């Protein structure tokens, strides 16, 4: 398997070459174009209840597509994401990472997706009650809105909730008000996430929620 991230950083997509009998699992709707030797099978994202949990609590799709090269030649597939921005590739060797809901694009190898309880505080921050955990051996690709900033954390660090893309289990999330109660409301910053621990996290420079908030104020005045 040979996978490249192509395009300028504003609009990256994956160009993936699969050898005969190789396969890749792709988020529903993410296939842009493909050779005909790749046959898709729509499968549930895990077991029935896992898939249900992923859909309703994790913001992921209930079904995902599994593309298998049934031909005798190398076949190519282009995989896209919904928002403009960078695509990240991460090899997992048994470790676990957490991703922002909806950012998963594709995976290859033996990687399990699970929804994990994130606590009520996350729900209040608009992040949902569950967090998405990816664990196993293989490669995953995930997309962000805008560009990616990598940050080595040792101690505490504060991030606006829509901008946290990837974090390891060694980092704990705590919900905080951006300022005082009234300040937070007036500044529209609302809640922010306080990261605590040691490890590398990734942030995205744009957030869909941010764009929607901006649009909402302009729509129906």
């Amino acid at each position: 398997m040979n996978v490249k991230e192509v395009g300028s950083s504003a609009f990256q997509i994956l160009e993936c070459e699969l050898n005969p009998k190789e396969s890749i699992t792709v988020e529903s709707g993410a296939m842009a174009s493909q050779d005909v030797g790749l046959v898709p099978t729509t499968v549930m994202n895990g077991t029935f209840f896992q898939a249900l949990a992923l859909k309703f609590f994790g913001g992921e799709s209930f079904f995902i597509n599994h593309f298998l090269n049934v031909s005798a030649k190398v076949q190519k597939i282009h995989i896209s994401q919904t928002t403009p921005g960078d695509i990240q590739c991460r090899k997992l060797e048994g470790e676990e990472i957490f991703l922002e809901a909806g950012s998963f694009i594709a995976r290859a190898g033996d990687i399990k997706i699970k929804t994990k309880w994130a606590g009520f505080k996350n729900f209040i921050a608009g992040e949902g009650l569950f967090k998405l955990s990816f664990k196993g051996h293989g490669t995953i690709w995930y997309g962000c809105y805008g560009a990616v900033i990598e940050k080595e954390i040792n101690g505490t660090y504060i991030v606006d909730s829509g901008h946290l893309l990837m974090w390891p289990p060694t980092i704990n999330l705590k919900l905080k008000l951006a300022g005082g109660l009234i300040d937070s409301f007036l500044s529209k910053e609302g809640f922010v996430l306080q990261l605590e621990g040691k490890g590398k996290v990734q942030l995205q420079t744009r957030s869909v929620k941010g764009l929607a908030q901006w649009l909402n104020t302009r729509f129906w005045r």
Partner: protein
Amino acid sequence: MRFELQHQPSSTIAVCNLEPKETLVSEGGALMALKGTVSVNTTTHQKGSGGVLSGVKRLLSSESFFLNQYQTTQSAQVWLCSALPGDMLVKKLNGEKLVIAGGSFVACDSNVHIDLEWQGLKSILSGESLFWIKAKGQGDLLLNSFGFIYPVHVDGEYIVDTGHIVAFEETLQFNISTASKNWLQAYLSGEGFICRFKGKGTVWCQSHNPKSYGQELTSYLKPRG
């Protein structure tokens, strides 16, 4: 008439250099700036083809109702842009036909004839536009995309998600269907429709799907209250 693309590939605009007696036809809303004395006529149809009906048809193909025609007596420049961030493509037609997906058309030389083609009942169910634009004639054509454009030279068969098609050569045969084999699964998976191309020719794809982006955004937008 000469199109010059600037600020590629993320924020592309097109500068059209108009010579006397040339006419540029553009989609309504694409104009950014004008230089020189240019007369602008807004019509619902191209010269000598259709009437108001072609404007209605164009609406159905997610293009705008009106076409603007730019004419000049001296040389002039017309700057054109698109609504979404992304790239543009200039395609020179030499008599061949090109099929353009709804929303991808920006402008053309008036010697290029554009018309709409009904895509059949399946396209209604697919939620894609009912019509695609068919262009033929002699001259330049300006197309836009969400994200960058990659050409695929098809020889045999090739599959493209309908939301990722910008345009394709008419030498290619195509067939719209669901990605999964059964319709229920296709509906449940939220998967779009795919276009299966057959034959020999080029299809231009866009890296991103405007509809998927819209859907992701819509879930955060407030209803009218």
